[in-house]
């Protein structure tokens, strides 16, 4: 067991070094700062407001005031409460859907790229089919068939449809790594394929997979917003997409209720932009050709 402890220590060390390297980039710092702010808001926000997101507060179409920091909408709901609860739901979808999509994509990519042959053919056929099916149409059909939809179902639907491009990218990288000599040496050591994939190939792609996850995270949030906006979001509760949908349905802009329509859109935009900035920064850090130092 001593070796395992040592190995764990080594992994931890490498992990710490990786994080220190990533944080040396200002884009990563700014992006992570913005994301951390929203995560904090989603975690703490619900305790800062006395109202539930779908609770009649007595004031209708009220502009921002100390009582209602972001005003209320035509139903008398407090926008700030909706925003922090909605942010929570959106981040959950992003985290669950993004993680699921990354996981499936990475596993399919590894197996397909490493095994090759008929396994590769089969998995790639599945991937390509999913890739050419218009995902939004598929999502609409699936979502429309489910009478009850929660955040979990929504993340599941997104995760199960968003993985194909990740699988293709990971497969390509795996294929190039599998012909490297250290993989050949592992084969000569009679290591089983799973150990070769996870101990020899995967560590070389750790930074790449992390970046894929960040992209999938943002992608899942955007997909969820899209689904919510066309009315296929969660049947209960609130999300940023649902806020946007309601604001548009009830003519918030035309009625001059900017505090209803703008905050959810702004939060989504900032969040996605921050994720994109982090990704660009990480690319600069981990891709030696883009490294500035």
């Amino acid at each position, binding site marked *: 067991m001593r070796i395992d402890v040592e190995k764990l220590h080594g992994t931890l060390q490498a992990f710490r070094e990786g994080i220190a390297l990533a944080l040396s980039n200002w884009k990563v710092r700014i992006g992570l700062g913005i994301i951390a702010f929203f995560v904090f808001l989603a975690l703490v926000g619900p305790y800062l407001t006395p109202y539930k997101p779908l609770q009649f507060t007595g004031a209708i179409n009220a502009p921002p005031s100390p009582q209602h920091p972001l005003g209320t909408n035509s139903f008398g709901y407090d926008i700030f409460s909706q925003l922090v609860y909605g942010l929570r739901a959106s981040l959950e979808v992003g985290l669950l859907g993004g993680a699921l999509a990354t996981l499936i994509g990475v596993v399919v990519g590894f197996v397909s790229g490493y095994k090759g042959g008929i396994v590769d053919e089969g998995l790639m056929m599945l991937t390509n089919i999913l890739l050419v099916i218009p995902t939004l149409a598929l999502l609409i059909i699936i979502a429309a068939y489910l009478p009850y939809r929660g955040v979990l179902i929504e993340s599941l639907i997104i995760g199960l449809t968003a993985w194909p491009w990740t699988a293709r990218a990971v497969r390509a990288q795996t294929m190039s790594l599998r012909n490297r*000599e*250290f993989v050949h040496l592992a084969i000569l050591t009679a290591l089983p394929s799973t150990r070769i994939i996870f101990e020899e190939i995967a560590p070389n792609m750790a930074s790449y997979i992390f970046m894929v996850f960040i992209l999938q995270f943002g992608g899942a949030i955007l997909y969820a917003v899209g689904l919510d906006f066309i009315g296929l979001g969660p049947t209960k509760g609130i999300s940023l997409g649902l806020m946007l949908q309601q604001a548009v349905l009830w003519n918030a802009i035309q009625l001059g209720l900017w505090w209803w329509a703008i905050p959810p859109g702004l939060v989504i935009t900032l969040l996605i932009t921050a994720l994109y900035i982090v990704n660009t920064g990480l690319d600069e850090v981990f891709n030696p050709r883009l490294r500035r130092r």
Partner: protein
Amino acid sequence: MSVLVRAVDLTKEFRVGMIGGFRIIAVDEVNFEVREGEIFSIVGESGSGKTTIARMMLRLLRPTRGAILYRGKDVWKLKRREIKWFYREVQGIFQDPYATFNPVHKVDRVLNLVFQVFYPHTSERERRERIEEALKSVGLNPREVLGKYPHQLSGGQLQRIAIARALLIKPKLLVADEPVSMLDASTRIDVLNILAELRDREGVSTVLIGHDLSLAYYISDRVLVLYRGSIVEMGSVEDVFEKPLHPYTEMLLESIPRVDKKWEKRMEFKAEAEEREVYALSGCRFAPRCPYASSKCAERPPLTRVDKEHYVACWLYAKR
């Protein structure tokens, strides 16, 4: 001496391009055998198929046709448990020592894995002793290399660790694919001497793959000369180097630069033809460059035995 490995009609084709591409026959119906306790060299220029043969011998690449038989068993028909046995007996060393080690792991890993996989019942203390012993036997100071990452070591050190790893497994056959081509001239001889010592002391057979004829001459017992995937000439070192028969072998030997001699051109050789055309040839692949080429060469010359151990594939020597 008994036969360890036999290549039977070994053929490997690669397809270039998906649709409308052409096939490259990297290795074309090659037959040879490696015996116990000998160093067998396979020499040829780049593109002759020597690395492809090495990979097929190490079970890293599946032949298109034909087979590699290890102790009479087709290596691609081994069962799961036999594969472990196969790799305990057959090991490899690769050309690029920097690529042989995973950049994310310490070099200790490849040494520890040997015990984990092949000798799991060795005690911790014995493992360490044997690792240190193996490292010392290839001329390394264990304290200087253990616990380091590959990028902290030199190519020569890494290649020695790769050899030490092979020593720990105690194989019967070592397939060394250009093990010294990326090392300094001064380190080369050391590494080759380790291989020779292994043969003399432990009776380990080595298949040495390379393009350097002088190194092959220095160390081998038998030599196989490869040109574009076919055997050109095969025999003992004395036969091939001192009495070369095939025009290609002659050309190769002539092109070795000598320190003590001014270079003078004796034979006239034409430049290489385009790859596509050479692989499409149905006759002797060397014919387009051969000064002795005749109309006969439109047909593939058979590998003919000219002496006890000396084979050549050329119409000049074929009995018809």
